[in-house]
């Protein structure tokens, strides 16, 4: 009788633990969904610190949603004061140090943007979601959520989400071992109904700057190309989401662009003729937490770039090969 009771207690404890874990996961998923909506839909402005590699930079963000039309201005308050202004139609990067403005036209080809975040059940195979209690950031109470990678091919997040709005007031990008790769921390943030349009205007006079934007005619011609490139080997969970050909701003040569994603992390692969760049990238490059790896394949320069560990971009780039028409999917 006593053994039966012990077994029952053990079973009940395990069942309770499992139920709590599942509840925690469901709660975490709900918070992540709220976070993604908050980042897009709310009106807010604030100052935050971006930390990586022992460096810290201060940035200001102004985010405006007017009837579903979202616009955002990001300004670096340090250094030369680069700015990025995003609207529904395009992204402008203003680079005073280069007296240049890059213009990336937004396309409807991106299934990720419309579908993101995809905090679906399929993520479970590659990430664990957990509620991590409560604390305070920038004077506001937060719910803390962890997105933990199950292997070393992707990074995880620790997120401090504003209890009232679900905005991430603090986030840490972490590798599989828990090391902080990058950290973002709001020093101040204000939510409001009205953000004046003027707050989204650049503070830099771009007179005399060179504007780089993709040539539409060239892009159309590029899209008519027939060569197909695919990565033969990708870490488990990464699937091809986007494949297109385009001409990037400031370039005259077409680039094949592939996007692989596991639903949270994504890796872009750019393939272009090696002749297009007399001074090509080579091997591993790092920009903040983003890694890029470049190699040469069949007279082409192949670069994989993404917010993933170096091994992931290397594996993907090294496996990219041209495909015959028969191999099309």
């Amino acid at each position, binding site marked *: 009788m006593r053994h039966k009771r012990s077994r029952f207690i053990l079973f009940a404890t395990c069942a309770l633990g499992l139920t709590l874990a599942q509840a925690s996961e469901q709660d975490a998923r709900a918070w992540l969904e709220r*976070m*993604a909506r908050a*980042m897009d839909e709310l009106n807010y402005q604030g100052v935050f610190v*971006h930390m990586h590699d022992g460096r810290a*930079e201060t*940035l200001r963000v102004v985010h405006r949603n007017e009837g579903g039309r979202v616009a955002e201005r*990001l300004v670096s308050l*340090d*250094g*030369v004061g*680069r700015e*990025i202004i*995003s609207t529904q139609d395009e992204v402008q*990067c203003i*680079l*005073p*140090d*280069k*007296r*240049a403005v*890059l213009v*990336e036209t937004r*396309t409807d080809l*991106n299934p*990720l*943007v419309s579908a*993101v*975040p*995809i905090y679906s059940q399929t993520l479970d195979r590659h990430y664990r979601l957990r509620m991590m209690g409560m604390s305070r950031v920038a004077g506001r109470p937060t719910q803390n959520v962890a997105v933990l990678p199950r292997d070393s091919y992707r990074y995880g*997040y620790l997120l401090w989400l504003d209890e009232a709005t679900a905005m*991430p007031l603090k986030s840490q*990008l972490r590798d599989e071992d828990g090391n902080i790769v*990058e950290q973002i921390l709001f020093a101040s943030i204000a939510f409001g109904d009205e953000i004046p349009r003027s707050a989204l205007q650049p503070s830099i006079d771009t007179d005399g700057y*060179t504007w780089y934007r993709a040539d539409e005619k060239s892009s159309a011609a590029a899209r008519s190309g027939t060569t197909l490139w695919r990565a033969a080997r990708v870490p488990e969970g990464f699937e091809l*989401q986007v494949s297109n050909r385009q001409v*990037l*701003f*400031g*370039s005259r040569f077409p680039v094949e*662009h592939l*996007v692989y994603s596991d639903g949270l*992390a*994504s890796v*872009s692969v*750019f393939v272009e003729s090696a002749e297009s*760049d007399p*001074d090509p*990238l*080579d091997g*591993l*490059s790092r*920009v*903040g*937490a*983003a890694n*890029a790896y470049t190699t040469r394949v069949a007279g082409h320069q192949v*670069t994989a*770039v*993404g*917010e993933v560990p170096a091994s992931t971009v290397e594996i993907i780039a090294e496996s990219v090969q041209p495909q015959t028409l028969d191999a099309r999917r």
Partner: protein
Amino acid sequence: MSEKIRDQISAFIDGELPVRECDLLLRRMRRDSELSLTFDRFGLIGDAIRDSLSGLPQGLLRNRVMQAVQGERQFADRAGTWRRRGRMLQPAAGVAVAASVAVVAVLSLRTGDPALQDAAVAASTEPFAYTYTVPEPSYSPPVTAPPTRLTNYLVNHSQYTNTLGRKSMQMRILVDQSETDEQPERE
């Protein structure tokens, strides 16, 4: 010229720069005469610090440089309010001190003025005292330069990341000006 490039040159001279970065640096030096001159200057300083320059008493220059750098450290430690910035400036200050000392040494050698050499030797026996002027950074107005290929890729890729990743990627474009120094694109 960015602090990072200076650090790379210094690491290169010390044989501590990764091979891939060596290639990039050498390619860049072939194009950039200012960089090339900086490399020569750093090399000269390195030689001076290692007492490779002939005609100087063994250890004299190294001791003076080390004393100067130590003096800078003490100064930086006192500057409590600016402690973090002070730490960042220490290497630069050390290099500036080393540069000034090395220039004095090189000039004394090149002019062949025995009085100067004697003075240097004499100075080493005196209690440590030195003055130097931090060189004014040469200002060159920004010129139009094309964005790097990696910047192009990042801007494009930022459209294909999740909400959190997109913002994060854009921040990198904003703050990582150093990568444009490493990989200048030429169309």
